[in-house]
């Protein structure tokens, strides 16, 4: 299976290594000494992001698109600047295709409500995958319930990669919608999203990519990929919580009704009806998370300046190192594909020690990992485990922190021996 061509950062050009110590100095949380291995859950935020939000609050705190005074103009300018930053980051054609949301979940729900409920009919097929996060499952189950559409799930193979043969077979049934994650939040699998998108477009499906785990580590070129929708969250890419992005192809967005009604999304309102604002405001009702959107723009600038290629390479080296060392621990079961085809995410099960107990012991060693079903219950059932523990890496993660994880895991084994 060819997966390498999907990744815009694995073009074979070696990036200069990250100056991790310099990067770490930008992240105040890391000074707590905690080995933070939960970035797939939420990332830490660097000083420039905090400063950008602080500047808004202290220097030009005002609402946007309304006030005819300087602070409001400045706030509007900074808020809208993020849109151009995101447009460039995704290589979208137009800033009108960039919709601010609270995060990936809201972006997917927007599509589920405004597009899917209008366009799907009883019996229509939605193709999802067994590795999806609940945020890319539940909205479609609600859609299926409301429209009578049916859902099929692409399975994984034993290595934790999507069964492309099964995917192609499902495409033969001409689904109306295909939705899948760029990167699995539990397995770390980097899906061949470009090939999968091209194949789905070839049979006329609308394609949504959940970029929650992809955007922060690989990025995406939405034009080259050819997807119709791409959703991601700010808080996993060094930005704050409460701000995320939905990219949508303009033709589709233009034809869709608003998701929420309210202020800022209208052109005119009378007692008999309303005309809507043009894109993107049509989808941005009410006062937005202004500071957070400004912070998100700064975060994307921050990450882009360091370079996603270098970040990805750093994560892969750590992942390779960690996978090898963890495979030497007796009774430790690793999930997911080899390092070359995965992001910096390692889910595992330690024989005889429940993931929650693993996480508690690790916590007492100052190592922060996620434990639980990772909002992927169907995948847990598929893997036949109630839960897993998950360590995940980002640009600031060090080999030393991985070593601390290894020591703590051996201690967990000792305690439960």
């Amino acid at each position, binding site marked *: 299976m060819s997966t390498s061509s999907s990744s815009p950062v694995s073009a074979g050009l070696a990036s200069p290594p990250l100056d991790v110590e310099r990067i770490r100095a930008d992240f105040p949380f890391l000074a707590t000494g905690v080995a933070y291995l939960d970035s797939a859950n939420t990332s830490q935020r660097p000083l420039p992001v905090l400063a950008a939000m602080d500047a808004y609050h202290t220097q030009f705190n005002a609402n946007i698109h309304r006030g005819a005074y300087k602070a409001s103009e400045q706030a509007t300018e900074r808020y809208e600047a993020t849109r151009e930053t995101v447009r460039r980051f995704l290589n979208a054609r137009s800033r009108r295709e960039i919709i601010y949301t609270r995060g990936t979940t809201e972006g997917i729900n927007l599509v589920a409500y405004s597009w899917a409920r209008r366009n799907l009919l009883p019996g229509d097929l939605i193709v999802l995958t067994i590795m999806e996060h609940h945020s890319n499952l539940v909205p479609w189950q609600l859609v299926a319930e409301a429209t009578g559409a049916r859902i099929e799930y692409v399975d994984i193979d034993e290595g934790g990669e999507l069964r492309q043969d099964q995917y192609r077979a499902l495409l033969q049934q001409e689904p109306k919608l295909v939705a899948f994650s760029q990167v699995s939040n539990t397995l770390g699998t980097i899906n061949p999203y470009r090939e999968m998108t091209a194949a789905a477009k070839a049979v006329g499906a609308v394609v949504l990519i959940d970029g929650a785990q992809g955007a922060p580590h690989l990025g995406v070129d939405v034009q080259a990929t050819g997807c119709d929708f791409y959703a991601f969250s700010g808080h996993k890419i060094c930005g704050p919580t409460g701000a995320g992005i939905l990219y949508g192809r303009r033709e589709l967005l233009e034809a869709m009704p608003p998701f929420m009604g309210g202020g800022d999304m209208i052109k005119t309102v009378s007692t008999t009806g309303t005309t809507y604002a043009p894109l993107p405001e049509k989808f941005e009702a009410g006062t937005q998370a202004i500071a957070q959107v400004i912070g998100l723009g700064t975060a994307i600038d921050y990450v882009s300046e360091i370079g996603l290629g270098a970040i990805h390479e750093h994560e892969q080296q750590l992942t390779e190192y960690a996978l090898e060392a963890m495979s030497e621990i007796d009774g430790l079961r690793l999930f997911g594909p080899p390092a070359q085809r995965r992001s910096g995410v390692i889910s595992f099960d330690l024989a005889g*020690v*429940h*993931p*929650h*107990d693993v996480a*508690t*012991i690790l916590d*007492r*060693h100052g190592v922060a990992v996620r*434990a*639980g*079903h990772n909002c992927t*219950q169907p995948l*847990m059932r598929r893997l036949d485990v*109630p*839960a897993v523990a998950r360590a995940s890496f980002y640009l600031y993660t060090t080999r030393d922190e991985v070593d601390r994880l290894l020591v703590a895991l051996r*201690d*967990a084994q*000792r*305690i*439960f021996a």
Partner: protein
Amino acid sequence: MVDDQFYREYILDHYKNPRNFGRLEQPDVSHEELNPLCGDVIGMDFRLAEGKIEDVRFHGRGCAISQASASLLTERLKGMPLEEARKISKEEVLEELGIEISPARIKCALLSLKVLKVGAYGLAEGEFEEDEDDS
């Protein structure tokens, strides 16, 4: 190295050798509850006689905290009058565990008590949750 204070010997003992683990044939009451945090399930079977819990077994898989808590609870329940079992409080269960439970793990520690309260008394799930928030 650091955890002997938390995962004490008797907690691990109850985890590895759970008391009253398994199923009862033809129980009078049988009930399961899910810990939504991790997907762990604990179920209990009860045989009742003359207003007492004559026998009890628990089943399901989970972390050391939820398993030890269930094991300790069943030990205590055997032969106990229903009226008394009804009054077992969350505080008592936590005290019996004898370790400091973080907020993140409190649902693990109280899962078996929830099975008892919701199952044996038909207490609505919401009632227990609400109750839980008060503690």
